C-alpha cells in the first residue's frame, strides 16, 4: 500500500509543468507548499520527505533555477497535501486496526 502512496507522489510530481518559471512563480508555489506543510504541522503529521523537498526547492531557487525550484515546490505541496489527507483519513480509521 505504501507503494501506492509513493506512486501517487510521483504522479503528482510528474504533473508539474515544464515551461520557464519566474521567481514570482516559484514564490507562489513555495508559499502554497509551505502553507500546506504548516497545516500538516497543525495536525502533527508532517513527513520528513516534505521537509527535505521544501529545502531542495529553496536551494534550487537560491541557485537561480526557478524552473526546477517551482517544480520541486509543487512536489512538496503535493507531499504535504498527501500527509494532510493521511491525517484526516486516519482520524477515526485507526480504531479499525485495534486489537479487540
Amino acid at each position, binding site marked *: 500500500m*505504501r507503494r501506492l502512496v*509513493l506512486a501517487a507522489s510521483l504522479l503528482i*510530481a510528474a504533473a508539474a509543468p515544464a515551461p520557464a518559471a519566474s521567481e514570482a512563480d516559484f514564490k507562489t508555489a513555495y508559499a502554497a507548499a509551505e502553507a500546506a506543510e504548516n497545516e500538516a504541522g497543525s495536525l502533527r503529521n508532517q513527513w520528513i520527505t516534505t521537509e527535505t523537498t521544501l529545502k531542495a526547492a529553496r536551494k534550487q531557487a537560491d541557485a537561480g533555477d526557478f524552473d526546477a525550484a517551482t517544480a520541486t515546490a509543487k512536489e512538496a505541496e503535493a507531499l504535504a497535501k498527501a500527509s494532510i489527507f493521511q491525517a484526516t483519513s486516519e482520524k477515526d480509521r485507526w480504531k479499525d486496526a485495534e486489537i479487540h
Partner: protein
Amino acid sequence: MSFSIEGFSATRRLVLQGAGAVALFGFGALAARPALAAANDTYPEAAFKQKADKDAIQALYGRTADASDKVKLDAPEIAENGAVVPISVTTTLENVTSISFFVSGNPNALAASYAIPEGTLPAVSNRLKMQQTSNVIAIVEAGGKLYSATKEVKVTVGGCGG
C-alpha cells in the same frame, strides 16, 4: 528524486557507499604511530593494511592455510547488526600458537590476531564489525602450520526493528 520504495535503509546504504570510497585512503592518513606497550611481539601493521584476505594472511603468516574441521568457527547466520558481530573459535588442534580473524568483505580483511602462549587454551570469543555480507575466516596456527575455518555471515542493516 528520491522516492525509493526500498526507502528504509537507503540513507544508510549511501553512508556505507561513502565509507567504501573513503577506504581508498587506507590507513596512510593515520597520524601517530604509537610506541607499542611492553608486549612480547610487535604489532603487525602491514598485515592490517592489506585489503584482501589472501594478502592479509600472507602478510601476517607468510604462508597459506588449509581448511580443517578441527577448527570450529562460531558465527551467526545473519548478524543482528554489522556493528557488533559475536564470533568465536575453538579447536582440538595441539600446540596452538595463535588465532586470527579475517572478514573478507571489510576494507581491510584482518580484524584481530591473538597470541596463544603455552598454557592458554586455544579458544577465543570476540565481537567484530562487518561492513557487508561476506566470509569470516578463522586461522589457527598450530605446530607451525595454518588451519582455517570459513563461514558466511549475512549482514543487512536498517529497518524499523528492535
